[in-house]
């Protein structure tokens, strides 16, 4: 898997991780996200438009990135508790862009689409961070 990363600024600084290839292991994505996190990234977009397949290991990687970003924001935890009860919670720090048909199938089968916003384009995702 190839992962390209770059920074964009909307309302807040955002790191884009663009994945290319099947997301069938967790190591590469988690390592890339951890490196970005150590460099100060607190808002990440995962561009999944070039990911033909996402396996359960890939889902685990997305889960780990979500938890990593969550760990830096205690306020998010309170908002999540309230929002989840009302079915309105979406992660404020991790957004997804344009998963392929099979990628979306994996995400929705696991229920990840309930908690993670999905956008058609990177600019839309970047603009959504507050």
């Amino acid at each position: 898997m190839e992962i390209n990363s770059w920074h964009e600024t909307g309302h807040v600084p955002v790191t884009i991780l663009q994945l290319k290839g099947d997301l069938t292991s967790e190591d590469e994505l988690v390592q890339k996200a951890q490196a970005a996190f150590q460099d100060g990234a607190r808002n990440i977009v995962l561009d999944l438009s070039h990911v033909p397949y996402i396996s359960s290991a890939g889902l685990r990687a997305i889960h780990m990135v979500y938890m990593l970003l969550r760990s830096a924001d205690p306020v998010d935890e309170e908002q999540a508790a309230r929002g989840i009860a009302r079915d309105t919670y979406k992660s404020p720090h991790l957004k997804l862009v344009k998963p392929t048909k099979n990628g979306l199938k994996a995400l929705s089968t696991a229920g990840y689409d309930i908690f993670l916003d999905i956008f058609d384009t990177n600019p839309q995702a970047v603009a959504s961070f507050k």
Partner: protein
Amino acid sequence: MKSLTLRYSGATVRDLNDIREFLESAILNLGGDENIAGDLVLAANEAVTNSLLHGYGDQPGAVSLCVETEGEDLLVRLLDSAPPFDPTTVPPPDINRPLEERPLGGLGVHMMRQLTDELVYRATDDNRNELTFIKRGVLSPVQ
């Protein structure tokens, strides 16, 4: 009945990409559409990965994949010689719980169940694991 088979005497996780490509091509060739192929490839990929990583302990192992038609049904049959494991006995995860309350992982068998109409396990007479993924009524009657 028509069938297409792929056999490895010593498969590893490096073969997973070729296995997915075989499955997709075989399913389409036997009359399944892209949506059905996507479901079955995702489901079978999880099972093969489990077999190679956990069943064979990440060592090369014998794996056979057969895509079959039975009337209007489409089947993918996975055979391996790893220690016996019946994934249909794994309890389902609660996917409505928030991500932070869920354990990391444990979604592979859930995907196998959700993406097929039926998931059938049996131990064969020669002590192999046979896991069959079934999509019901997805083929045209004239296939």
